[in-house]
Every structure is written in structure tokens, then in C-alpha cells.
């Protein structure tokens, strides 16, 4: 293979079927159906992921909690930055989240700053933030901070169809009659457009 082709193949935008699942490091989502669809088998590390849904403060925790439980079960820390409602301590503990390893930060004006600091410190492997309105530039900053701290940043956003972003993974949640659908809109290093289903409880 000549060197020009080599350099093209190193470009992360080039997807190669035979190298699927090989390069991306990740944190398990804890949902087997979702893990199977993601290139690294989980939330991508050192990257920004977006979870889109019609209204924040509803079904996102169902998708995020299993991963949160795995992350906090050992020595690792996880953080929630400016959640729209109060996460219920009892429910979190019941789902296996170790509350003593979960940090909550409440701030509206400085939430992006706080998220960036936490990501850059590299102390929290998993950070979930509800940034509200966020520009592409701010997303890029979160992406850079996640790369710097080698951590995983998940931004939960109200659904907006055409928002540009540098996120490695974009996931849309919507409720159907049979349960909660997780639709992969963008999947760096994997195949987009697939979806999985979480049945209603």
C-alpha cells in the first residue's frame, strides 16, 4: 500500500468494515443491546457523546444509569452536572449506583466551566451534563476537555435536528408504544442508523 493511501486510511472519518470495534476505547453502557451497536462496545472514551430527546429530565437516566452504576462500582468517580430535576437517591442506589462515588454539581451560569474542569482533571471517567442551549463551539470545547482528561462526556440535549457538532456519538431517544427507542444518528468508527429498544417497565 502506498503512503498516500496509508494516510487517508488513518483519517478517523474513513470507516473500514474490517476494523470495526478495534480502535475505540469505551465505557460499557450496561445495556447489552446498545453496546453491541457501538464500535468500542460502549460510551466512547476521550470523546463527547450526545443524547437527544424531546424533553430533558425524562427518560435519559434509564439509558444512562446502568453505565453510571458500572463506573461507580469500583474506585472510579462519575459526575452529574446541572441535572434539570433532582435525581432520586433511593432510585439511584436501587439501580446499583454507588452514591459515594457520584458527584453532583449544580450551577446554571458556570455549568460548562464546571464540566470542563471535571473532564480536564481526569478524575471522573464519566461525566453527564445537561448544558441546555449549547453552541457547536462549546461542544467542541467539551470534546477537547474530554480528550485531555481521557474521560467520557455525555451531553443530554433537547432534540434539535440540524445542530452541528463534533460529537463521536449521537443518540436519539424516543418513546414508542412498545418502549423506549434508542436511535443512533452518528457513530464515529461504527455504523449509524441502527437502533435498539428498551421495553417499558
Amino acid at each position: 500500500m502506498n503512503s498516500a493511501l496509508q494516510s487517508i486510511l488513518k483519517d478517523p472519518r474513513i470507516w473500514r468494515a474490517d476494523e470495526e470495534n478495534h480502535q475505540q476505547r469505551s465505557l460499557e453502557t450496561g445495556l447489552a443491546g446498545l453496546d453491541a451497536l457501538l464500535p468500542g462496545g460502549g460510551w466512547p472514551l476521550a470523546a463527547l457523546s450526545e443524547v437527544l430527546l424531546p424533553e430533558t429530565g425524562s427518560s435519559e437516566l434509564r439509558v444512562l444509569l446502568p453505565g453510571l452504576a458500572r463506573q461507580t462500582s469500583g474506585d472510579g468517580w462519575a459526575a452529574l452536572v446541572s441535572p434539570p430535576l433532582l435525581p432520586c437517591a433511593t432510585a439511584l442506589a436501587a439501580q446499583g449506583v454507588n452514591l459515594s462515588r457520584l458527584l453532583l454539581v449544580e450551577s446554571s451560569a458556570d455549568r460548562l466551566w464546571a464540566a470542563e474542569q471535571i473532564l480536564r482533571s481526569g478524575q471522573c471517567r464519566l461525566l453527564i451534563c445537561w448544558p441546555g442551549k449549547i453552541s457547536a463551539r462549546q461542544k467542541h470545547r467539551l470534546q477537547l476537555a474530554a480528550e485531555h482528561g481521557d474521560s467520557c462526556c455525555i451531553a443530554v440535549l433537547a432534540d434539535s435536528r440540524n445542530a452541528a457538532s463534533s460529537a463521536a456519538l449521537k443518540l436519539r431517544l424516543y418513546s414508542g408504544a412498545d418502549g423506549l427507542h434508542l436511535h443512533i444518528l452518528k457513530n464515529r468508527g461504527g455504523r449509524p442508523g441502527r437502533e435498539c429498544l428498551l421495553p417499558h417497565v
Partner: protein
Amino acid sequence: MSEPANSKGELWLALHLPLLGLDLLQLSSAHAPAACLYEGENKHQRVWLGNSRARRCGIVPGMALKAALAQCPDLQTYPRRADAEQSRLEQLALICLDFSSRISLEPPQGLLLEVGASARLWQTKFLRRHLQGLLREQGHIVYTALHETPTGALLLARSRQNRPAQIPLGAFPVDAGITRKLARIGVHTLNDYLTLPEKDRMLRFGPELEQMALKILGRLPDPRRNWRPPCRFRRTLELEYETASAGQLLFYARRLLDELDEALAQTCSAVQQLHWIFHHYRRAPTRHQQQLLHPGRDMSRISLLLHEQLERLPLPASVEKITLQVNRFWPKAADSLSLLRDMGQNIDAIEPLLEKLQARLGAQAVYQLRALPDHRPELAWARVAPGKATPPPDQLPPRPLWLLPQPRKLSSIRSFRHWRGPERIASGWWEDDIRRDYYRARHRSGVTYWLYHHAGEWFIHGVFG
């Protein structure tokens, strides 16, 4: 006299600072203009101490200030500040703490160190010279002496003699009348005094002198109070020019932190709370309190935090002085490395991050949750400061993932389907009257909510997601 340690193995090094008060004013050198310190009020002002040029003009301690001025009209006079001298002695004692743990302050002008215990580590001769050098660097004139007894060492240093027998009686801190009386009968030194019949000495010249002589001979115990470094810190730094810029203030604050670090090192302590006071010209000072999660001594971390806070601290005017005050020193935990690094609840690594977040967002904004064993949702959780371990309760009723801070009233429940419940949640009769029937129901949008019925109205209290 040689320097053998006595039976207890003690050897005392005395430091005598004859011009301490003038050292503070930088008037003690031979080139300084004639100057003296005085004590007393109004008519009773008397010379306390004069520098070498003043002495050459005939100024001696104890003479009336007016007489001194008449004798030497160029004489500069300053009131004596005993408190400043005392705090200077304490600062010097801090330096000496590197060489001995037994230090005694001997105001007004002396310090005593027990060096026998470390004689094997330090050659005493070298130590003596080294300390002399250190104190000279601090701008002091210092005389030193070694003796097995504290009193002996002090008096040797004060009189600049080598052997106790030669100490002039004038060097003893006793009533001048007694020494004059002794001088009249030809008794000038300690040796002369000791040749007098032992029985008569006390009767004729009083117990004070006799006791000191016996202490020097080692026949009377001579206990000294061990000086302990203060477990407080307060230092004020006057800025070279007034400024309100955070960067410049930080520069000066770092100097104070360096001093604090030194004080902490000397006492093996750590700090948790730092009070900063920024003084303005003719205005109430701005106060700022810095709180660390745990006692620590990492000054670079503290100064990083301060940087964060200074940029957000509203200052009404430019600052002319900065005071740093620490009211409590904490014993410093030994730095230990765990053999099994990943075991246990070690939160040290995340601490700097938590402090940084709290510094900007406030302590309330950074927290952890704690689940409590209570069936009422309002009381089933608590906020705790980060880093506090929280064992979860055993019995956990099924609860929604989100709670609304306040239950929200619903106008209609028509769009809800798939009802399940109810669960009755009621408080005891001795508490607030809560009696609610909770249901789970799915909204048309597909989201499952936690609703309750109370007094004919429906409320949303949580979201299952």
C-alpha cells in the same frame, strides 16, 4: 572552661542580642547615627538602649532622656516596643528550631538552646558559628556562649567572657545597689564572690545573687520553660503600591503563603481555613475566607484556588495591605503510600478538583446524594459534602429516577394511561400530615410519571423515565 556536658548531658547555647530593639530599626551598626530607645511616659522617660555612637557620646541606659538629649542634641530617640522585640525573638526561635527542640525565650534580649542532645549530630563549635551567621544575616548583632547550665550560658554571652569565674557581677540581673556594695569591698567577678564565706553571702547580699551563682555551679536546679512555636499565624504585608489587580494581589499573597508554609513546616502542621483581609485606604477591609476540604499544606494548590477566587472577589477599592490569618493549625497527617493502592475510599486525588469547583460555585453547589431509609420521598435523601462515605440503606422502595423539587399540580389526567398502584404514603400522626396515594401512569408522550392524589387534586411528583 571546656565544653563537657554535665551529668544530665545538657549543654546550653545562649544567644544574646545586645541591640535587639535597635536591630529592628536598623540603627545598630557602627555607622548608624546616634540613636536610642527610651521607656516611660512624659517626665519619666529614660534611655533603655543606645547604639555604639550614642554610647560614645556618653549615653548610658537608665539616664533621663532629657539629659541624654542635652548631652547629644543629634540623638534620634524612639520609644521601645517590647512586643515587637518579643515577636522578633519568636521568629528567631523558629529559625533555631532547626537545630534544637528545646528552646527557651529569655526576654528582653536572649535565647537559649539545648544543644547537648544533638552534640553528636552537630559539632557544637560549628553549630555556634552557623547560628551566629544566620542571625547576622537577619541583621542582628549576636554574642554566643556555651555552658552546662542555662544561667551560666546566658551570663557568659551577656558579659562576653569565656569562663564563668570571670563573669563580672555587673552582668547579673540584680539590683545595682548590691553590685556596687560588692565592688566597694573589691569583689568584681563571680570568682571573687565565691571566695567570700558561703554563710555570709546570702545574709549580706541577698538571695538573688546567691541563687544564680549556685545555678551556675550546678548546685541548684535551673529549669527553663520550653518554648513551643505558636499554632496560629497572622502576618500583614504592606504592598509597594496600591493595586486592585488580581494578578498583582496574588503575587503578594504568594509571599504570605510562603511564610505560612515555613511556619507550618516548623510545627509539622497543616491548615484548613485561611482568612484573607484586604485593607483599603479609609474603607472597611474586604474579607475573604478560604476553606479547604481537609487540612493540607500544599501551597501551590492553595494559591491556585486563591487565584480562582481573587478574580471573582469584588474589591471596592485598591488594596494597600494584605493580612493572612490562620487561627488553627492541624496536625499534619503523615504522607503515606498505600501498599494496595486501589483499596479503600481514597478521595485525595479528586480533592483539588472539588476545591476548585467549590471555590467558584460555592460549597453548596458541589455535593453528593445520600439515600435515607424513609418511605416519604421528601425525607428519603440528603445532600452531603463530597467525600463522605454513604452506605446505602438496606430496604429501598421502588422510586422514580427523577424527583421534582416541588410537586406540580395537574389540570387534568386525561392523557395518562396504564395506571398502576396505588401506594399509600402517610406520615406518622406526630409529624406533618402527609397522606397520599401514589400511582405510576404513562403519559401520551411515552414517559412514565409518578402521580399522587390529594384532596381531590392530582400532582406530579416524579418521573420514571
